[in-house]
């Protein structure tokens, strides 16, 4: 079965890519290529759900070896699948979203000339992603890791005639490579320390090596910390964490289904998956874990601030993704890997939904992406409008605290914030993450609702021609929206207790389940009852004042109630601010005001993404070009050639004359004389010496 899950997408990619495109003869016309790739993906998706049930509930973990790969000395890595719950969850995420995106692309890419190529790329991506998540060793993981990078490169640059798309594709690949170098060095360090790159062997030997000190670049570092840090650098690149995040917003140059699949739901979460997969290492590396918490929290904050002011509908969602990935990382950093995976799982549904909705809007408005030229189209695209509202309710985490009623994001984001709260007693990074996470939640709500209001409400601000032609998308695009909406509504409530370990042994050792209970398990309790509960729980030592606000400190499943309540308060506050700014106020006026005044320092700082791209341009990019030129013109041509061969030529008088002889056809003679001379020399020399 797992062979099918992983290789069906590859088969689809090969068929569509080799037979369907214009490589040589086109054996497969467009439609069959699309049917084959999409059909195979749906089969794989259904099998993935089967596998989740088998593994998550029935605990049928498996190891499947497909083919020998590298086998040099102790360095052994096979093409193999390791199936546990962690993998099964990823299989479901990847194949579900991918199959829906395939279907959606039937509509979205309708006018494209090269559909088989597009579908081949999508399937190829899916295959690489599946290799990544099923890997049983670090090298195959690296294969998948770079494979998705390649597919991402190809899909970002899909509109290859656009210079900006090409630039974005290269930027994505190269930035990811920076991270990949970290990952590669991490894998090498693992091999050096453990003598193996296979997960099981490595994780089993962590106890024996946790105190080892390694020299690295002139420093003496604990081996586990070093490995953890290097692997995390890889994760930072792939998952667009701060300082390596620059490629993700630009990646929006790709077609929107691609953004939904690769740059929201699956590929960018590979970093989170890596940290979860390697969690035994991170458990042994507290310093790095703190670093991850801090970076994750900072990214959550940073990306949210940038999203506040962006005008491109896709860029808003892109920064939102970046920010949500930050949440996942700080959850992983504080050791709540299951919360991180849970958010990854729910996020895949609602973020893919948001992107596909944005795609539907863009499709309706003839590739208009600037929200300043949208507005008031909710009547034109009712399905999209409702789906996007659902997605927004999910990402902003709307639900009733203390109960199991809420949208998907409500459960997962709260689980993360609670995990950070739990950790804040021990680490400053976690405390930082907790508060930053709350502030980012406010901003998330603001920019998400701002997007809705600017796009669907108010008056249309583009030209009327576009509005007249605006239309709801065909059913192939609406069906994925509906299915993902279902996911965005129920994925949290249904899976909460399993992911968080409250019901059944879902993970079965694939991930540790953090101790302590979590809220909203199964039995909802009334607020009144909670207020009655005396806070006798010694788990948290908050003072519990009585009186009017005593219920805020009442303990609900191990957390003071205010911790459960605050994310919701933040979310609603964000909504209210957005409401006042964009529903009560006039969007036109705001746009004009900004155009007249320039928007102020802070606005521009955010609009220009903290000027990080500019910073890289004047430092790294310039330096590379400068060094390249200098090494070439000065190093090679002036110094090496100047003092080397050319210098010799000048020195040897008459060289020029001899050279001209070569030119006039004496070359053969010259060469054969040389050979003869060498032969004679050797014979004479050896005879003389030896004889």
């Amino acid at each position, binding site marked *: 079965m797992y062979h099918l899950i992983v290789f069906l997408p590859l088969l689809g990619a090969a068929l569509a890519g080799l037979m369907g*495109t*214009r490589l*040589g003869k086109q054996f497969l016309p467009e439609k069959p290529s699309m049917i084959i790739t999409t059909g195979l993906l749906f089969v794989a998706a259904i099998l993935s759900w089967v596998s989740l049930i088998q593994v998550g509930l029935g605990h049928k973990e498996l190891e499947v070896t497909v*083919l*020998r*790969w*590298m*086998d*040099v000395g102790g*360095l052994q890595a096979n*093409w193999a699948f390791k199936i546990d719950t962690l993998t099964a969850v990823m299989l479901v995420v990847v194949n579900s979203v991918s199959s829906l995106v395939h279907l959606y692309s039937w509509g979205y890419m309708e006018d494209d000339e090269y559909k088989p190529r597009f579908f081949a790329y999508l399937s190829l991506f899916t295959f690489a992603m599946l290799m990544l998540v099923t890997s049983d060793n670090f*090298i195959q993981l*690296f*294969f998948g890791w*770079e*494979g998705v990078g390649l597919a991402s*490169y190809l899909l970002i*640059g899909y509109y*290859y*005639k656009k*210079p900006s798309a090409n630039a974005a*594709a*290269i930027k994505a*690949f*190269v930035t990811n490579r*920076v991270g*990949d*170098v970290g990952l*590669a*060095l991490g894998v090498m*360090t693992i091999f*050096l320390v453990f003598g193996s790159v296979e997960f099981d062997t490595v994780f089993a030997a962590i106890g024996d090596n946790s105190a080892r000190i390694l*020299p690295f*670049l*002139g420093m003496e570092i604990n081996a586990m910390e070093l490995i953890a840090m290097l692997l995390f650098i890889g994760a930072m690149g792939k998952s667009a964490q701060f300082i390596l995040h620059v490629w993700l917003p630009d990646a929006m140059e790709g077609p929107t289904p691609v953004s939904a699949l690769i740059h929201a739901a699956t590929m960018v979460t590979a970093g989170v998956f890596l940290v979860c997969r390697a969690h035994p290492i991170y458990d042994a590396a507290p310093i790095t874990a703190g670093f991850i918490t801090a970076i994750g929290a900072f990214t959550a904050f940073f990306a949210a601030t940038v999203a506040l002011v962006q005008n491109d509908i896709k860029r808003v969602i892109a920064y939102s993704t970046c920010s949500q990935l930050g949440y996942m990382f700080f959850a992983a950093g504080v050791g709540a890997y299951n919360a991180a995976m849970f958010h990854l799982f729910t996020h895949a549904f609602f973020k893919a939904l948001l992107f596909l909705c944005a795609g539907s809007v863009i499709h309706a408005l003839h590739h208009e992406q600037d929200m300043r030229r949208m507005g008031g189209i909710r009547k034109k695209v009712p399905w999209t409008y409702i789906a996007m509202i659902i997605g927004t309710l999910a990402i902003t985490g709307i639900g009733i605290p203390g109960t199991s009623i809420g949208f998907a994001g409500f459960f997962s984001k709260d689980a993360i914030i609670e995990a950070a709260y739990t950790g804040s007693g021990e680490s400053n990074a976690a405390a930082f993450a907790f508060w930053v996470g709350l502030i980012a939640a406010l901003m998330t709500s603001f920019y998400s609702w701002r997007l809705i209001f600017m796009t669907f409400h108010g008056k249309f601000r583009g030209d009327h021609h576009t509005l007249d032609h605006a239309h709801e998308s065909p059913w192939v695009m609406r069906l994925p929206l509906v299915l993902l909406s279902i996911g965005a509504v129920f994925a949290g409530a249904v899976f909460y207790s399993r992911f968080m370990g409250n019901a059944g042994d879902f993970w079965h050792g694939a991930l540790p389940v953090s101790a302590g209970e979590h809220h909203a398990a199964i039995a909802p309790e009334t607020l009144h009852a909670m207020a009655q509960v005396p806070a006798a729980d010694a788990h948290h030592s908050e003072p519990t004042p009585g009186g009017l606000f005593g219920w805020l400190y009442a303990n609900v499943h191990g957390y003071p109630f205010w911790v459960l309540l605050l994310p919701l308060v933040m979310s609603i506050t964000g909504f209210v601010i957005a409401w006042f700014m964009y529903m009560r106020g006039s969007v036109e006026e705001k746009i004009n005001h900004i155009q007249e005044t320039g928007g102020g320092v802070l606005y521009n700082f955010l609009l220009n993404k903290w000027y990080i791209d500019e910073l890289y341009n004047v430092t790294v990019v310039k330096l*590379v*070009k400068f*060094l*390249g*030129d200098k*090494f*070439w013109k000065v*190093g*090679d*041509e002036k110094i090496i*050639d100047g003092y*080397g*061969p050319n210098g*010799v030529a000048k020195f040897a008088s008459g060289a020029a004359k001899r050279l001209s002889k*070569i030119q006039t056809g004496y*070359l*053969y003679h010259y*060469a*054969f004389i040389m*050979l003869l001379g*060498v032969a004679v020399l050797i014979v004479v*020399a*050896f005879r003389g*010496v*030896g004889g």
Partner: protein
Amino acid sequence: MFEGYPILSFITFAPLVVGVLLMVISKISKPEAQEQLAKNSVLVALLVSGVVFFLSIILVLDFDTTQAGFQFVEDTPWLGGGIEYRMGVDGISILFILLTAFLTPLCIFASQTSIKDRVLEYMVAFLILESLVIGVFCALDLVLFYLFFEAVLIPMFIIIGVWGGKNRVYASYKFFLYTLFGSVLMLAAIIYIYNFSAQQFGAPTTDMRVLINDLDIPGGVQTWLWLAFFASFAVKMPMWPVHTWLPDAHVEAPTAGSVILAGILLKLGGYGFLRFSLPLFPNASLQLAPIIYWLSVIAIIYTSLVAYRQKDMKKLIAYSSVAHMGFVTLGIFAFNLQGIQGGIFQMLSHGVVSGALFFLVGVVYDRMHTREIAFYGGLVSKMPVYAAFFLLFTMANVGLPGTSGFVGEILSMVGAYQVSPWIAFGAAFGMILSAVYALYLYREIIFGESVNEKLEDIADMTKREWIILTPLAVLTILLGVYPSLITDITGASVENLIANFNAATSQVALAEVP
């Protein structure tokens, strides 16, 4: 299968003999017949190199991979005085023979249309070149090796000098000057070894089997001899800073010349290090390895940066070759299994990948007669097949997992990492930079709007080009997915090499401790 037959001599000399015959027949025949002969010479050359390729496949299949020593050995008297005609192959050399035999027919096939004048001489030059290169890898006698090793330059020199571009004289002169410098020093070292063997064994010998296993050169002398060999191999590699001949040679060479140059001639240096420097001068190798490390890391970073700024397609690929060879030297001088296996793998893989890249440059050069990057753009619209092949080999050049480029790179870095993280760290920068220059090249010529009117009618790949590039593409992926094809064959010999190396170096360490 070949017991009793001098199979190695046959595959070594068959092309040479046929080449010389062709030349002679052409000289004595009438002018009209000469023209016909020139046409047919391509077929003859294809046939001969095809037979050699076929035989070398059988040779590899017949090769016993469990044995570390030399196989198919031939040993006949030659010059006397310990200098005899000795041939044989082991796991390290046999695959280079296969690579040579594989690339040569492709080169000849590719040249059939692109070479217009002096076709017969061109074919003869290629056949002779094939003979000499195979000879280098077969030779088991130091003097025989040296003869082949130096003689290889001559046909290459001629190919560049006669069928090259505008600046061919400068390029071939530079090529010649660099390599001459190395050769002279190596010759001196060989003569010294010859004398020394007489002292140690009572009678002089240049039998490499004896020298490798039993020669015991004192420490100080080892250093000098190592440096002398190094001078020659470093130029051939080429290592920084003696690499500047390569870009010029590539730019001027005809397509097939570039393929052979990058695909095979660059491997002679690495092979030399493995065959001589490590076994004959183990202690010097160990002591002087830091030089190699630093030169390699510099080469990887420096030439990658230079590659990024190139305006000529061939120059860009040539500089990238230097960077890739940096990984080879790093791997070899890591002295461990992963490193050396990685170095060998990287050489073979680079032979296929860079060979293919030069073929690809040749495809558009044949159509437009320029290699200027700025001239091209948006080729994917006109040449989708070309773009697809180009993408595959670009990714292999970048070292994407799943292609052969990755295996060599990661193995040699794993090897180097065990010696020092610093080195692996430096080399890892090459991973980033290779993406920078390779994708830059790809974007400039394949993607974008087609801006040049001259490119309006450019045709996609012909049947011939398909036939040439398909096997290379298959091999690139096959080796990336199943690298054991190579590592199983080289395994035993490399393990043996390392075992001997460790024994020799630890002996000294023991001797130093009183």
